[in-house]
């Protein structure tokens, strides 16, 4: 069957043009899909920058008056230790911690800052991706210890200084060695206290101890401080009580925790566990929600892009069919001669299928090579264009061609070739030998 190649070679121009069609079709599909895959990867990377994908935030269900009107059974779910214990029992859950959070003021000497203080279960802190840069992590029994986010030191300023917004330069405070004070009084340390607090007792000030600074994580952790939830809740409760005496705020203790975080071992389980917790009557949120919707969007775009590519490959397939049919017209006599010389119908069909498959295969192979080239260009030249539209993380690529994609593309192109060759091959097979060799 070597003359399949001979025939392809003899009709060089036509073959090359047909192969070119397949190359373009394959390249179009591969590049389009690779863009989709690249987009997906970038989404994932961005989300990973935003935070861990296997964390679930659990909230108390919202019970405003509107909810009652809308009806529906409201489960009497309370985010307390009992509920947390139930979360822990769920399969695939690695760790659970209650979360309390408030905005408080830290003071170190004459420097102060207002940052978000988050209370956690100190026993499981290391499970929640808290990586220590300096000092140590929180340990069970650390009632007054605080761990700061990496950017927290830079947030301290001197309220008595004239240009206290001029941060930066050297960090004025050493959070681990300096004496620290924590208070809910946001005017603490200011030169003038606002008038509203004049007639009331000042909010209590607590002594705390900085024990560690976290590694930079590029998310909200950098700008937070962490401490034991029991201690924090006590501070909050006392503060609220004080404020209520002053007629501000509304705090009813014993309602359970504000929120909780659940760490899941495997990202695949996040959706399932999240649904489980929702069924228990809580509000849930995780980054994998966003990932899911992003992936759905990406899938849609990918399908669209792939569709465009598929159209060009379809055109290429028609090209193959057309070339093969033309080839049959040109070679009617040859086919006839072969039949007269005793060629099996199968031989003739094989010959044509082989030629068509060869065109598809070669086109696919070259198309893949071509795609890698284009992908390379896109990743190096096109990246600046994306950066123009929005920031991208390091190592992000616009177009990603995994090995399976290139293998699938070559196989697909060959199959398209074979399928396109099927009709011409049948035609050649059915050609009357007599018609073909007629001299006139």
């Amino acid at each position, binding site marked *: 069957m*070597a*003359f399949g190649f*001979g*025939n392809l*070679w*003899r009709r060089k121009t036509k073959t090359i043009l047909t192969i070119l069609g397949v190359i373009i079709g394959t390249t179009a599909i591969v590049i389009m899909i690779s863009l989709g895959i690249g987009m997906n990867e970038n989404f994932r990377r961005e989300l990973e920058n935003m935070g861990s994908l296997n964390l679930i935030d659990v909230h108390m269900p919202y019970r405003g008056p509107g909810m009652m009107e809308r009806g529906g059974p409201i489960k009497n779910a309370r985010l307390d230790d009992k509920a947390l214990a139930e979360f822990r029992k769920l399969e695939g859950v690695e760790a659970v911690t209650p979360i309390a959070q408030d905005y408080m003021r830290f003071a170190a000497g004459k420097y102060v800052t207002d940052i978000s203080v988050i209370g956690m279960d100190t026993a499981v802190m290391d499970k929640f991706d808290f990586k220590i840069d300096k000092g140590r992590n929180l340990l069970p029994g650390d009632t007054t210890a605080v761990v700061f986010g990496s950017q927290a030191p830079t947030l301290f300023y001197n309220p008595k200084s004239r240009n206290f917004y001029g941060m930066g330069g050297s960090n004025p405070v050493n959070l681990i060695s300096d004496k620290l004070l924590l208070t809910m009084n946001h005017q603490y340390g200011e030169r003038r206290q606002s008038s509203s607090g004049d007639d009331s007792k000042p909010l209590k000030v607590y002594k705390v101890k900085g024990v560690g600074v976290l590694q930079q994580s590029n998310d909200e952790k950098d700008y937070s401080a962490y401490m034991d939830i029991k201690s924090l809740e006590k501070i909050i409760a006392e503060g609220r009580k004080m404020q209520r005496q002053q007629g501000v705020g509304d705090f009813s203790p014993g309602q359970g925790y504000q929120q909780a975080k659940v760490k899941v071992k495997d990202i695949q389980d996040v959706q399932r566990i999240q649904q489980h917790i929702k069924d228990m009557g809580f509000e849930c949120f995780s980054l994998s929600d966003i990932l899911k919707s992003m992936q759905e969007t990406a899938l849609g775009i990918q399908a669209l892009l792939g569709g465009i590519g598929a159209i060009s490959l379809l055109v290429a397939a028609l090209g193959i069919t057309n070339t093969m049919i033309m080839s049959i017209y040109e070679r009617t*006599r*040859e086919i*006839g*001669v*072969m*039949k*007269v*010389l*005793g*060629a*099996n*119908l199968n*031989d003739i069909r094989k010959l044509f299928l082989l030629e068509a498959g060869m065109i598809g295969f070669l086109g696919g192979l070259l198309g893949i090579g071509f795609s890698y080239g284009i992908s390379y260009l896109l990743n190096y030249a096109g990246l600046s264009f994306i950066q123009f539209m929005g920031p991208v993380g390091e190592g992000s690529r616009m177009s990603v061609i995994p090995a399976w994609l290139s293998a699938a593309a070559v196989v697909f192109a060959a199959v398209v070739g074979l399928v396109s060759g099927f009709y011409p091959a049948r035609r050649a097979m059915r050609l009357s*030998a*007599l018609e073909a*060799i007629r*001299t006139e």
Partner: protein
Amino acid sequence: MFILDEQIAYNSGEGLAIANIIELKDVRKVYRVGNEKVVALDSINLTIEEGAFCCFLGTSGSGKSTLLNLMAGLEKPTKGQIVIKGSRIERMSEQELALFRQKHVGFIFQSFNLLPALNAVENVCLPLTFRGVSKEIREARARKMLKDVGLETHYRHRPSQMSGGQQQRVGIARAFIGKPGIVFADEPTGNLDSKTTMEVMKLITGIARQNGQTLILVTHDLGIARYADRVIHILDGNIEKIEENSGNVGVNQ
């Protein structure tokens, strides 16, 4: 080139028991052209013995080519039986016919019909290729065949690089390489000049007689018909007369 006289003497010897290789019984072929029926062959009854060299002679449109096509299994008769080597070929399927042609039939065409993509050796190989003979064996045999027809210098030439006479020699080598029982030749010299015609005819008859192969030749050229043992005149779809050439064929001019 060949010792023709000796072989002719052998073939025309009376006493040999010769089996019929081709039998036509009441063969009729009607073409339909639009609404009109054209009778190409009316009613042909004919037997040809193994090893004979028959020539069908007739003007164009006499039906001689149709008769050849029927005997080669390229067409089916409207009516009648065609028995070749004991098989009713008009009943065979196309697949069976392909196999039949592979085994028993060689073909020489007027317009040579070599495959332009292949060189001389590969063209000669074709029938063996279809039989599934291994490449070394078939190419060795093809080279020997080409040497026999005097083309040992043109193994790697493509048809476009050869003269008409050379192409027809390749065609002859191709027809005989599979040692078929019957070789059909349809105006094999129609595209050749008279000198080449003679050479080609000697070559064909020489090889056929050497191997005891049946040769069926179709022509309108009386000069060529003289090479045959038997000349069957075809006129308007019927056998007009059958002439036996007694000896001396091919050298009687």
